[in-house]
């Protein structure tokens, strides 16, 4: 069985500052993929960033980067230069390679304050 845990139900950050969202996971698989999705109040689920477990290099997408610690089974998301539009629910998710199922964490509600 696979599980994803997000221990921070809510967080807030000031505009232009940096914030880190935590995620830990558990899986016995070697071939898996990790994702961060963003869901703003409009409710569309938007892919933020993805990471292959076999890659040691941390993924980056513009202001978003991850700290992937495979041995610790940790996958945190860092948002730099936070913007008001980053206000959303953020879900960490895991997918075993070849599996049709995506396992979600419970989410972290991020508020960016002006």
């Amino acid at each position, binding site marked *: 069985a696979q599980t994803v845990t997000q221990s921070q139900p809510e967080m807030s950050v000031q505009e232009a500052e940096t914030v880190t969202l935590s995620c830990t996971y558990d899986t016995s698989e070697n071939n898996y993929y990790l994702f961060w999705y963003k869901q703003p109040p*409009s409710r*569309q689920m938007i892919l933020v960033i*993805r990471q*292959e477990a076999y890659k040691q290099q941390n993924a980056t997408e513009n202001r978003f980067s991850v700290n992937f610690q495979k041995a610790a089974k940790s996958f945190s998301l860092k948002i730099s230069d936070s913007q008001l539009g980053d206000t959303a629910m953020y879900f960490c998710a895991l997918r075993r*390679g070849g599996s*049709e199922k995506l396992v979600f964490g*419970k989410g972290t509600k991020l508020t960016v304050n002006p």
Partner: protein
Amino acid sequence: DTEVTQTPKHLVMGMTNKKSLKCEQHMGHRAMYWYKQKAKKPPELMFVYSYEKLSINESVPSRFSPECPNSSLLNLHLHALQPEDSALYLCASSNTGTNSLRNTIYFGEGSWLTVV
């Protein structure tokens, strides 16, 4: 912009009505999904179609009936729903394979369903 489109965006239906949610993708993906999401919760998987065949049904009540007419389309037929079925219904698609791009699931904007 999402490449998974869902219609309608909002639907209000009575408990005796029959309605359908529709989903379309043009990314050539061979797996399509229906998720249900309640407020402040993560999405819950309902159904998965792989190569147009139902591969996963997560013990969903029969008042929800999925249909995959072709590789680009996915429907969810609704009949005799209950008020507790009110939720956001998300359609998604993906491929499968050995790289992260193929393992990424892309979501539509969702259909808000209210059962009265």
